[in-house]
């Protein structure tokens, strides 16, 4: 029987990712069906395909639950109380479905059974035509739909927040899981670094398992857990390992925002984790040096991407994912405008992952305390990245990256107009409120610790609060990861 804690943990995590996958599929299919229903006559055969897709995805959802609930909360969609993450790839369907239901004054619906295909069609046609005449659209809809014999559906009212009883327990186990994954990633990299003599021995299977767990975790982002926030864990002493893991985390979060498929997020994550693979071949006396490099040492350091070609030696056949890993290790210091290093005879077509990792690499390096540098504030680093957009970095990706982190980046400490200090915990999912993120106020005007409550700055009740500037977390003695993880 499944009884070990570890096992439950791994299971829960991959289940969440699968729920997200099935939920996404439902959102896509259902939005398509409603659209079809609002354009075509019900007799049209064009209905067959979307109806079948919806029926199928709902039947899959019923396997895990006795009922299936769809909730639109402000502009997030939850299926069976799991937040379906919006990314650039399903943006259209997601937005259309959410706005459509809300405009009819419906907060969502609950299915007690999966209707057959004909019933689904009927449902979609009726829903597409339905218009609420009062604020309580859900009451009207329930009356209308049950008159038509569709007793298997119950519409629900609009809500501001979704509460779940299991939530507290979930949060705790998730935090443990997140930290465990982080530790495992660290130890995999530490292990990798011990194979300097024989890099063939590096166990990429283990690294993949670790990265896959991290990707799964990234789907569990919600009000109490910021996946990106994991990258705020810094360790000055063990910079090398922490940096690799953080670049991996930032890249995964970024990839998710871009709408990468789960398997591609895995590829990206593993590429990011090993982006400095070439450094394994740099002599330790240089790698571990704690003072500035001499010119000669700097030249050796600059050879590290090219040394990553040794990744290939043990390659058994063409596997696109291992090739991408190589490309990232090779290209992450080549700039968007082809400057940087190493220099190639054939101008390199920089792979998407290389350009992503190059941004994540810089972001983490600059926000971390180093022996030669105080950490830069996250918003300063974004400004730096922006100043190099089109030169060092892909300008479109820089925009997308700022979208991922927000104008006030997740993990930064900010001073409010009231003099309070807050930690930015989550990007506002509504693009129009990008500069009003979710924050936790952690210090009062006099610097006393406060009980941190998550606040959505775009909520009318928070309208008087304004972020004035980013501040140094160390100055206020704030341990940022504490509030994010």
């Amino acid at each position: 029987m499944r009884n070990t804690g570890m096992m439950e943990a791994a299971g829960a995590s991959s289940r969440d990712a699968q729920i997200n996958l099935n939920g996404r599929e439902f959102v896509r299919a259902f939005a398509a069906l409603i659209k079809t229903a609002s354009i075509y006559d019900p007799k049209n055969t064009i209905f067959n395909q979307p109806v079948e897709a919806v029926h199928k995805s709902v039947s899959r959802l019923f396997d895990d639950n006795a009922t299936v609930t769809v909730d639109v909360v402000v502009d997030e969609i939850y299926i069976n109380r799991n937040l379906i993450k919006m990314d650039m790839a399903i943006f259209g369907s997601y937005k259309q479905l959410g706005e459509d239901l809300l405009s009819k004054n419906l907060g969502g619906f609950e299915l007690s059974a999966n209707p057959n295909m004909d019933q689904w069609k009927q449902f979609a046609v009726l829903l597409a035509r339905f218009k609420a005449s009062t604020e309580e659209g859900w009451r009207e809809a329930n009356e209308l739909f049950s008159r038509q014999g569709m007793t298997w559906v119950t519409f629900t009212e609009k809500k501001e927040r979704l509460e779940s009883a299991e939530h507290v327990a979930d949060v705790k186990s998730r935090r443990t899981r997140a930290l465990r994954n982080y530790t495992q990633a660290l130890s995999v990299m530490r292990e990798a670094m011990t194979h300097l003599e024989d890099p063939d021995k590096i166990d990429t299977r283990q690294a993949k398992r670790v990265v896959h767990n991290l990707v799964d975790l990234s789907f569990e982002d919600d009000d109490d857990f910021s996946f990106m926030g994991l990258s705020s864990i810094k360790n000055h002493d063990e910079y090398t390992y922490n940096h690799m893991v953080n670049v991996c985390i930032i890249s995964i979060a970024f990839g998710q925002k871009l709408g990468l498929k789960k398997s591609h997020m895995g590829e990206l994550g593993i590429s990011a984790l090993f982006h400095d693979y070439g450094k394994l071949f740099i002599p330790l006396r240089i790698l571990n040096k704690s003072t500035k490099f001499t010119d000669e040492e700097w030249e050796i350091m600059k050879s590290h991407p090219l040394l990553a070609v040794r990744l290939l030696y043990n390659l058994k056949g063409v596997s696109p994912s291992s090739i991408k890993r190589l490309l990232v290790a090779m290209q992450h210091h080549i700039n968007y405008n082809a400057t940087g290093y190493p220099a190639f005879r054939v101008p390199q077509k920089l792979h998407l992952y290389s350009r992503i990792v190059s941004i994540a690499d810089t972001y983490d390096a600059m926000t971390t305390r180093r022996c030669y540098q105080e950490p830069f504030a996250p918003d300063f680093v974004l400004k730096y990245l922006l100043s190099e957009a089109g030169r060092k970095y892909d300008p479109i990706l820089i925009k997308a990256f700022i979208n991922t982190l927000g104008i006030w980046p997740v993990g930064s400490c900010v001073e409010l107009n009231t003099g309070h200090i807050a930690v930015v915990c989550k990007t506002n999912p509504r693009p129009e409120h990008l500069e009003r993120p979710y924050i936790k106020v952690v210090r009062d005007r006099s610097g006393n610790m406060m009980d941190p409550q998550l606040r959505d700055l775009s909520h009318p009740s928070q309208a008087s609060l304004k972020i004035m500037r980013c501040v140094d977390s160390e100055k206020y003695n704030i341990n940022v990861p504490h509030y994010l993880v």
Partner: protein
Amino acid sequence: MGQTEQQISADVRAAKDVVQHFVKVRKSMRIYLQNNEVLTRLKQELSRRFAAFFETVSGPLEITISRNDLTYGDTVVYQKDGTDEDELLFQLYRSGLRSLTFHQGVEKDELFKFLGMLNQTADQNVQDDLVTLLWSGEFRFIQYYAIDDYLEEGGAEEGMKALEARVDSPTPLPPPNPEAAGPYNEDVEMDLSRVKADQRLPREAAGLSERETALLLKEVEEHDTAQLLKTTVEIALEAMVAESTRDQENKLTEVVIALGQSLIDEGDFKTAAQYYGHIDQLSRTEFKSVPQVLRVQQQIKFTFANPAHWKNLAGLLNDVFTGDLNDIPRFLALIPDTAMPELLNQYAQIQSPNLRKAFLDGLLPHSEKNGAALVNFLGSAAARPVLREVIALLGRAEDPKAVEMLGKYVRDPDPRIRREAVFALGRGKSNDAANLLVQCLDDEDLEIRTTALRNLMSMQANTTFPRLKALLERSDFEEREFQEKMRFSLALAKVGSWQSVSFFAAVLNRKSLFSGKNDVELKLCAVQALGSLVSVDGDGDQMAFSDRTDRAQVEQLLRTQGNNQPKPVREKIDEILKSLDRRKGSVR
């Protein structure tokens, strides 16, 4: 109560049915090749059993995996039956899987992808373990639970505690080793001069336009293996130049070859051709006269030139090739001529006629220098089933032995073989080939005679003129069909050009030829042949006579024939002359 028991056993029976057949299909997939019929049937049966299960049971099929058995509910549905390494239970359990759930609606694609992964990882040589692969599979209807406690080895618990302590504290904990300066480890050069530090990040900084989003999404969806490999090989060559030791160079050379080879092994001939083509191009451009790269080129050539290297080519085409037929000749063009003997053996083993035809096209250019290999192959037992097809290649071979061999085939009792041989002879250019074609003009098979004539015409083999003429002058020639006589005459005009004028003039002027009964027919042929010398052929090319004086002579000859000839011949002459006049008119 009895009914419930029955119900339960029906569930279990259905589950057993599925699992046992599942095991069978998994085994079969290791024995049979992908496109095998038996396997296809087994797979269909598996889908059917899954469907039957979901008809009987309303929930998913959840299988618990333990070291010694698979259970459904509390019932064992599969038990360990052997100890060999690739045994299913051992594989599942070892990889950490503890349960598998198949949900209603599971599709064939997902199911066979899953089975494929099971077999893939049973092979010790792969880089991914089963759980890793399953994870990447992004299954919607198949769920698994796996433990990953092996990640917990090596003091992870300690690390975990330290990390927890660090995160738990609302204020930063001092570093465990405050003395350590940490590694310098800087690898970027930063220019902070352009940063607008005192300004807020503008909102536009995050404002992606629709076009930009579309561009990004397009790239996210893009999977261009060929491009990936091209970049990889550029990197590998670059590194090869940078790597100082010969040992590193050899390793990289191996890698470059292996990358292409794995494409071939997957039956992706198209990408393989692009890949090697790219290396060739690089060696002539960016890496021109770089010794390391020249050595790579030589090594590739050396590998490909070895016949033994292609032992499994037919197998790949039969079993895994799914590309475009045009990819095949393009790919074969990469292989040096020396591998031809093996390529011929492989050819004989290709099953589909379409694939064989494409392969044959690819063998044609190799045939020129490979007469001896062709002759050897044709003499072997392996050639028998494909004899007729391979004969076609002989024609292209420049080796006199090939023509000699064709000489043997044009005398073969089997007309089908003779037909191929006479067709092949048309591809040669030698006098020997032309003489053999003349021999064929006496073949009992009309198709062979016609092909031989057509080949002689297209070869414009004027050395054969005397023999062709002699044939026309033989008395038995009179007995042939009018159409054939006509073709012969036209061929003689084409082959003999001006030499033939006097011959045809003689035909027209003789009162009677041979028995005399077919005079009109023979004269019509002569007129038509003369006409062909002065008219324009279908392609608009002036035939035979480029010289105006020669043309005028023939025209004069025709004009003076008028009254002496029988009516049909006269009419034919008039017709030709009229068309000549019309053309002159249009030229003017």
